[in-house]
């Protein structure tokens, strides 16, 4: 089985986020957004790629919406009401509450102001929202028997979530938009360390690294204050929700502190009603804001009033929040036309504007004139302040999250291609994770994790759980070929445990695989264990300088122990990393045993040593197959004592070793 990731939108671009992922046979659509920059069919994702017969109920298991921005939810009413998808749709409580407001706001802009044919009606929006199942953060939702999803805090806007999806042994995370640094009204993204096959992350700021937000907030407040102090009007084009409330918290707080009386208005599109949602959903905001619920809810703005159209040209300073955010039409454009020609006024621009909007034109360079269409031209003399606090993570945040989750694969979406390419290089070189940047309508195939399942016998589990470590000292040379992942290359001591090898995996036709302990296996086979051992009686010359006086009775009984001690000393010098146990009668290394052999005719003394030297000691060795290699190393070392008995020579050998 594999994971297939089909990108329907936001592939190498920003707008109409929509990714369809198939994991182990389950198909999930993440986000269903619309592109604000297009008016034609390119506005919506190409849903026909999901199912040629347009039978979406059978080809999708669920739809997940990460947050209420239109480029993530804009196409949802169209998909459910016009295309006819009737399956489950999941979003967080705030997204379910706020998405219809955004959709309705947008619909009005399209129909009322731009006079376009409507794509979906108010009824469509409400019918669509009825199909939505609201979820809480970290709530583990069992979509069906196999598919499990879970939302994590993403911090981008109120209710924004990253979604985790798991089918069988495979799992993935789709981040949606997220922010890794806390902000004045929202916390930072938060996720558990998960075992993932795939991470699909946004990459709006794939190459940017940003500093603290507080300095930029101060700049914004200063610009606004200077403008109203000079009697100017401030236009803040925003979307109905999110940025409006964030800036409003800033201004309301500032007004309170500075004791300012200048009115702050919300335009009709952004009713104060919207603040009610924020009040109820205050527990989804930052810790500091959250705590205000008991005394005065931070979203009970004191200085904010509703705006009336007649106030556009009223004298005196004011601050106005108006939709839409990118001055692409609607009320913010209407006010912009009136206020832009006056030098005293100030227009703030959001951090990101889609190409083709007035906002985008204002951002690129310092235009003095803006052509709305071929007949209308606006003189722009007012000041322009660009808000640079965007609630997207910067490249450091993306790298941090990717490193933290360490998925097996990464797919980047929602960004600009050149920047994404450089981020991809970093992920591949620094984190060594394969990374992909599919374009719209491209699909990426990656392998998924599968485990072979087996019943494990209690004996096996118990034997594995009894602590029985082998400590290995490691020299530097050993590290070169180590795989990076699970070991710490600087650790001088490695803990090793091989009891997994005592497990036997058994496959029997028509039965589930079993893992038994090797002792269980004998019981199962009704067989007796047959030991197969190796033995060798090895001759060694213990000609040591200090030992010369004892040479004559070296083989004597009284010296049995001391020759073993000598051997121990020699072996310890040779095999510095090996743990040799001295058990009195014999020495033991793993299964290798060596003891002094006093027999004249030991059957294991294979090589006849006819010219028996007085200084020769015989050592009987035995071992089992597991330690074969080690055993032969020790034996050849022991035999070398026989050949080389002067110190300088031996030292040269050990230095070679």
């Amino acid at each position, binding site marked *: 089985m594999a994971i297939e990731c089909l990108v329907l939108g936001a592939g190498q671009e920003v707008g109409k986020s929509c990714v369809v992922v198939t994991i182990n046979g389950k198909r999930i659509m993440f986000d269903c957004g619309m592109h604000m920059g297009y008016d034609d069919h390119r506005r919506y994702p190409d849903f026909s790629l999901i199912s040629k017969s347009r039978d979406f109920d059978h080809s999708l298991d669920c739809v997940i919406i990460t947050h209420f921005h239109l480029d993530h939810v804009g196409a949802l009413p169209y998909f459910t009401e016009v295309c006819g998808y009737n399956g489950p749709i999941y979003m967080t409580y705030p997204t379910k509450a706020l998405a219809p407001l955004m959709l309705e706001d947008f619909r009005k802009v399209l129909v009322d102001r731009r006079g376009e044919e409507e794509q979906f009606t108010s009824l469509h929006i409400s019918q669509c929202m009825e199909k939505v199942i609201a979820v809480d953060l970290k*709530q583990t939702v069992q979509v069906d028997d196999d598919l499990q999803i879970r939302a994590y805090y993403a911090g981008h806007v109120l209710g924004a979530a990253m979604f985790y999806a798991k089918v069988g*042994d495979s799992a993935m995370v789709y981040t949606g938009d997220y922010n890794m640094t806390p902000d004045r009204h929202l916390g930072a993204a938060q996720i558990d360390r998960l075992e993932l096959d795939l991470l699909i992350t946004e990459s709006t700021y794939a190459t940017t690294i940003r500093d603290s937000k507080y300095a930029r907030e101060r700049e914004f407040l200063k610009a606004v204050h200077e403008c109203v102090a000079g009697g100017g009007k401030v236009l803040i084009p925003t979307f109905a929700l999110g940025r409006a409330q964030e800036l409003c918290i800033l201004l309301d707080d500032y007004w309170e502190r500075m004791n300012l009386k200048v009115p702050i208005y919300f335009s009709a599109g952004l009713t104060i009603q919207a603040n009610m949602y924020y009040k109820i959903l*205050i*527990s989804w905001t930052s810790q500091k804001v959250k705590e205000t619920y008991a005394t005065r809810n931070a979203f009970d703005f004191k200085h904010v009033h509703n705006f009336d159209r007649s106030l556009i040209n009223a004298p005196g300073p004011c601050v106005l929040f108006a939709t839409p955010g990118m001055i692409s039409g609607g009320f913010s454009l209407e006010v912009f036309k009136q206020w832009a020609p006056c030098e005293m006024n100030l227009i703030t621009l959001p951090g990101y504007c889609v190409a083709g909007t007035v906002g985008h034109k204002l951002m690129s360079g310092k235009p003095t004139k803006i052509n709305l269409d071929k007949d209308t031209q606006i003189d722009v003399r007012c000041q322009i302040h660009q808000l640079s606090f965007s609630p997207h993570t910067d490249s450091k945040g993306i790298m941090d999250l990717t490193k933290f989750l360490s998925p097996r694969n990464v797919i980047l979406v929602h960004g600009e291609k050149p920047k994404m390419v450089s981020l991809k290089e970093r992920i591949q070189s620094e984190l060594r994770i394969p990374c992909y940047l599919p374009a719209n309508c491209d699909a990426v195939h990656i392998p998924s994790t599968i*485990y072979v*399942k087996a019943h*494990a016998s209690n004996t096996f589990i118990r034997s594995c759980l009894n602590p029985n470590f082998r400590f290995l000292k490691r020299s530097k040379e050993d590290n070169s070929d180590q795989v990076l992942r699970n070991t710490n290359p600087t650790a001088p001591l490695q803990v090793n445990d091989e009891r997994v090898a005592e497990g*036997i*995996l058994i496959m029997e036709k028509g039965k589930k695989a079993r893992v038994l302990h090797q002792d269980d296996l*004998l019981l199962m086979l009704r067989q007796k264990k047959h030991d197969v051992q190796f033995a060798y009686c090895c001759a060694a010359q213990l000609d040591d300088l200090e030992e010369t006086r004892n040479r004559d009775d070296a083989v004597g009984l009284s010296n049995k122990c001391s020759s073993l001690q000598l051997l121990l000393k020699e072996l310890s010098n040779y095999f510095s990393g090996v743990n040799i146990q001295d058990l009195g009668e014999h020495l033991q290394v793993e299964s290798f045993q060596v003891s002094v052999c006093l027999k004249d005719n030991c059957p294991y003394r294979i090589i006849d040593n006819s010219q028996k030297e007085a200084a020769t000691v015989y050592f009987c060795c035995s071992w089992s197959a597991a330690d074969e290699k080690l055993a032969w190393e020790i034996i050849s070392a022991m035999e070398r004592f026989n050949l080389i008995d002067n110190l300088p020579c031996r030292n040269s050998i050990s230095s070679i070793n």
Partner: protein
Amino acid sequence: MSLGPTPVCIPLRTSHLICVARTPNPNRLLKSSFGNLGAEDPFTRREFPKPALLWHVLPSSPTACAEDSLPALLPPITCLSKGSGFHFPPCHILDVSGFRILLDCPLDLSALTIFYPVSPSPKMEEGEQTYDFAVNNCLDMRKRQKILKSLICAQPWYKTPNNLHLWDPSSIDLVLISSTMGMLALPFLTQTKGFSAKIYATEATTRLGQLMMEDLVLMHNEFHLFFGSDSGSPQWMSWEELELLSPALRQVALGKDGTEFGGWMPLYRSADVEDCVKKVQTLKYAEEAWYNGTLLIKAFSSGLEIGSCNWTINSPKRNIACISSSKFYSVNAMEFDYHALRGNDLILYSDFSSEGVLTNDEHDNNLSASTTYNPSTPSADNDDRILKECLLHNDESLEEREKLAFICSCVVDSVTAGGSVIITLNQLGIVLQLLEQIPVYLESSAMKVPIYVISSVAAELLAFTNIIPEWLCKERQEKLFSGEPLFSHSELMKGEKLYVFPDVHSPELLTNWQEPCIVFSPHWSLRLGPVVHLLRRWREDENSLLVLEDGLDTDMALLPFKPMAMKVLQCSFLSGTRLQKTQPLLEMLRPKEVLFPEDLREQIKFSGSHSFSVFYYAENETLGVPRSKGSVDLEIASNLATQFSWRKLDHDDVDITRLEGQLFIDHGKHQVLSGNQVSSSSRKKPLLHWGFPDVEKLLAVLSRMGVKGSVERCMSDAESGSDEIVHIHEPSKALIEVSAARTVISARDEQLASLIFEAIGTLTGGI
């Protein structure tokens, strides 16, 4: 940047070391409860007036819970207390996979009625000389107490679940809190030295529980001011004084069989509450919490109250669901999520709410006749549908609504007659409903009467209820989606129909006070809080009304306020699952085993057709359940599995291979993943042999490999113990000793030795 909990992949051999060390040992139980134990330990501090009392305690002491005394039984479950009603939920201890879990830690606040209430402030009681305690001294009061035939005039102590104090708090690994009421005794535990258990509760329960405990501490402070700080064991607890108590009081103080005296504790302080709440790990509904990488803990809505839950505990061998009192018809709280409890092996059913209902309630009695429920259709799906219908048959909601309507109309009647109303209900859900409905009733009868909520935590509590849509029922959530406040009390406060004051002598209250009025105020035991004061004020007004909750001995509760002309309305609300729904519910959840209260055995006769076995448990008895036979599932990484070298066994279609890799135990899973070591060549050699190599065949195999030798038989040679010896001459000298259980290969040539080893492998079974 802040990211969630980190450590995950520990090769759990190390981690399991911990649990090996923690397996319950038989000495976990406190040795005894004689009064000489450590003074700092609140569970052992009190002095027992007469050791004789202890004999009741000791025979039933939970030593039997030690696992080794129940070798075939797992997990042992002990019901410490079956509690009583909504305010005092049951309390259990269960051992799962070597971890000891405490389920709920409640406080029996109804026991407060044995104490005499003091008045918070004498100021507004000028007319009532009789009860002006500030002038009277305590001796005087004792006289009056005698007249009142009983109540204890002292700073109250609080009654924790019977038997909880007999358990060593440091032996508890995990505490699961299922409702706010199940949390009230938690500070007693958390302040104990050596207590280090992980505590889980839902976010909403924790917040509401904290508010309730803070309120309790503040209300108790009135006693503190009156009696001064208490030191040591109070006088009323001495044996002589206890003997003097009336039988009714004695029963509350000592329990029916005199065993409950050990549960009394002096109240915690607010610092203890704060400290306790900090130790609670809060969860969302259906959030996965892993304890020690072994137990998966999840909370699912029980519908009883905002934030209350049923717990599921998944251990590698058994899945357990603990069903506390759950309501199919929830008031404001999120609906009972019983689907999520499906598919567990074992259900601990601890909903005692229907206990004794039969005798009290005619209506229920009739219904219980139909309790023996018989699934008639064989098809499973159809079965489910019928079960569902039976479960969701909504007779409760209608009845509960009627009760509320009745209360509202009584309230309106009283205020119309010029009397005032005090409502001292304990269930938050009901209070919130009344707060919405009473104004509607008042409006329809054109009455303009203020509603006061007087409690130190009321303002925060009401604000809190308006920001927790995730914990509320569908209807309330709809309000969020349509942009309305979740509860109307904020509007009522703006419209000056509802006022919230912290206490009776707050200046705002004094300036706003109007009578008649409707007051919501704690405490429902009528011993603490503003209600004491207000009752004294209105007790002689026959038009006034007191709305009381069930679960209180009214005679005793109203004793200090007698004579009373005031009307009293005691109402009981459903606080659990109806008896007739219990069996369909269990059928639907399809467990293998059910632990069911012994006390309900008579009331529910499980019909023969059910698919699960039922075990009955009783208070303070340890019950073991047959060990589950399930084996542990091992997951082997597929890339590793493909590298295994398989070996076919001679007989049958069986393939076997030796495992390789590293074993990880995490999140309750056992996984074999490829290790970082390249397997050595010796790995591929069989390490285990069985059978017996025939020497002649061995020679033949060897000669095919170019190895030549001859056989020497030495029957029962005492020295070497070998049966047969093969001497190898070519290519070099070697020796093979073959006996029944052992073969020894002796050669100097490494290659030759492994060649012989290989030859033997072909003649024996090996892996």
